[in-house]
């Protein structure tokens, strides 16, 4: 998939068919925190994130994936979050990011995606 031989990488194809995607998680979140829809994907959350300084955790990407119905890796990614709340303070749209994280935890534990 990744070819780093020549000093650059090639990303895998990221095209999706929206008709085949599962948007349940997305709808669950916007019914709890409507602000999620007003996200402009500016990335301030990721830029300020405490966990992102140590690992490849990317809250912006996480939200982006949920909007695209790509829910496979959400649980694994979300487990890296320290819940410190910097993202919610920095968000220029005033989105309650911690509420979204809480809602995600609740939904994911309902569907048994946490194998702990």
């Amino acid at each position, binding site marked *: 998939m990744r070819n780093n031989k020549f000093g650059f990488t090639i990303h895998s194809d990221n095209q999706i068919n929206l008709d085949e995607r599962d948007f349940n998680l997305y709808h669950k979140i916007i019914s709890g925190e409507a602000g999620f829809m007003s996200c402009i994907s500016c990335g301030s959350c990721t830029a300020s994130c405490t966990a992102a300084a140590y690992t490849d955790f990317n809250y912006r990407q996480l939200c982006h994936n949920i909007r695209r119905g790509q829910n496979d890796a959400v649980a694994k990614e979300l487990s890296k979050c*320290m819940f*410190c709340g910097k993202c919610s303070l920095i968000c220029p749209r005033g989105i309650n990011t911690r509420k979204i994280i809480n809602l995600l935890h609740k939904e994911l*534990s309902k569907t048994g995606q946490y194998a702990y």
Partner: protein
Amino acid sequence: MHTELFTLPFRAGLTFILLYLFVLLIRWLIRMSPEDIRKITAGFLSSKSISAIREIFSESLLHRKIFKVNPVLGYMHMSLAFGWFLLIVTGSIQSISYKSGEFHLPYYSIFFNKLESTTGTYPLKGFFEFAMDLILLFILSGVFLAFYKRFHSSKLGMKKTTHLKIKDKIALISLWLIFPLRLLAEGATSVIYHNGSFLTESAGNVLGSVISPEIIEMPLWWAYSISLGVFFTSLPFSRYMHIPVEMILIFFRNYGFRTCDKYGPFTNMEILSCSRCGICIDKCQMPESESRAVYFIRGIRDNQLNDLQFENCMMCGRCTEICPVGIDINEMRMISRKNSATDNIGNYDYLHHGKMTRTDVIFFAGCMTHLSPSIISSIRGIFSIAGINYHFMDKDGGVCCGRPLKLAGRHKDAAKLVKFNREEIINSGARTLVTSCPICMKTFIEDYELKNIRILHHSQYILELWKDNRIHLSKQLMTLAYHDPCELGRGLSVYSEPAELLRRIGILKTSYPHGKDSLCCGGSLANTTLSLKEKDQITVEALQQILVNNPQYLATSCPLCKKTFSKLSPVPVKDIAELIFLNIIHDKNQKRRKIFTERKQESVIF
């Protein structure tokens, strides 16, 4: 014996409640751990029991804490509780004085005027009759105030009162009826047998002008007995259960019991001790909702708790601080959060310890401080002027202290972060840990088990530096308002140090409420459900009260409060460290110069 028949409802009610309490107490004792039992046995015959009795007298009877909230409200509670107590005690002495040396069941002294109405005199008859009337008047004034409060609560210092459910209303009405019925019943008897005093006789005379006392006497005594019986029977199902249980609670609290991290016998006592007085309601800055402390406790008691009731709270602790019963509401919410949260889902294996420099002092800024870099640069500036050899622990971002996770109920995940940071702190070999975030400081003190390490807020540390003459400050003619953060003030009882520091550099103008009653900024990390609009509303309302003296600066000692306030404040919001750094004197000559110019300025102004 037929005349005693009317005492039956009272006797049945009293027997029921006493048996109920006995069973309740036995069940609590069975559920307690051996360690808890040891606490009781150790405390029972010690001075702790005496201090418990003293506390029962001052809180359950005199209601001193409610007097502090509002004197009229305090009088209302006191007249009902202490008055009833006096009535029982004086009545018992009266019956002993009548038949000395005999054992009486409780009903005898309560219905004394009726049961012994026909026979002659006994020592101090007149005195007892007068005293009993006086006490009854005292109680009736309280009943009147309680009735009045239902319609005009603001006159008694309460903007809002508790919304009562039907069970509470039944108990309330039976309580209100007890004493007026006693007055009428004794009044009717006193007209017939002349055994009353100023109050009962006049009441009886008024009654006699309407209806013949002989006809109405027995029905009134029956009604009095029934209202007592109904009240006692309704206790376990209503808020009035607090009357007996609060006394038990005070004993256990004096024996060293505290709200811990799970629901058990002690929390059960606390829940039953809530009288739903509603004093906490006015203290809450949240929008009107079922998450108010009083409804939250009722939710637990009735097993009808919904998640919002404990999640939609800023955990500022104002309700816990004001609660006259001393229920640890914050801790209770933490238990509920813990029970409902999905825990142990965090995976922080990516964290690795870096290179550690060994120093005496380490500085932990915390996540929130990293959002206000000026606080960090000010603190570093102060430290370098004071010549402190310190290690900046989270210079490159750092790891969260774990408190936000704990506040969300995820204790196991928080423990993972605590473990990581704790190793980092201990490996540094530091003796002093300075943090600029009260949220971190609270968890450092409560959860980190850092023995032999002093944990200080930067305001405390800077004050120490000033006292040690390591930094010099110049006083300016600027007016300051200081806001006590929840976690530093109510959470850790640090009030005086920041205020003292601010007095060194400016003129501190106190606005109310402050100190233990200080307002929450609205930005609390403990709440994940409030929308931005609601948060802003809380912030604006808090700012109006804090900035009432029109200060030039609003000083805070919490980076989160600073961030929250600065968004909406009309005056500049500065952390205490920033203000200190602005007014620090770099060398002694400069100090002299500064003082000189200061005096010059003052002479110009005055």
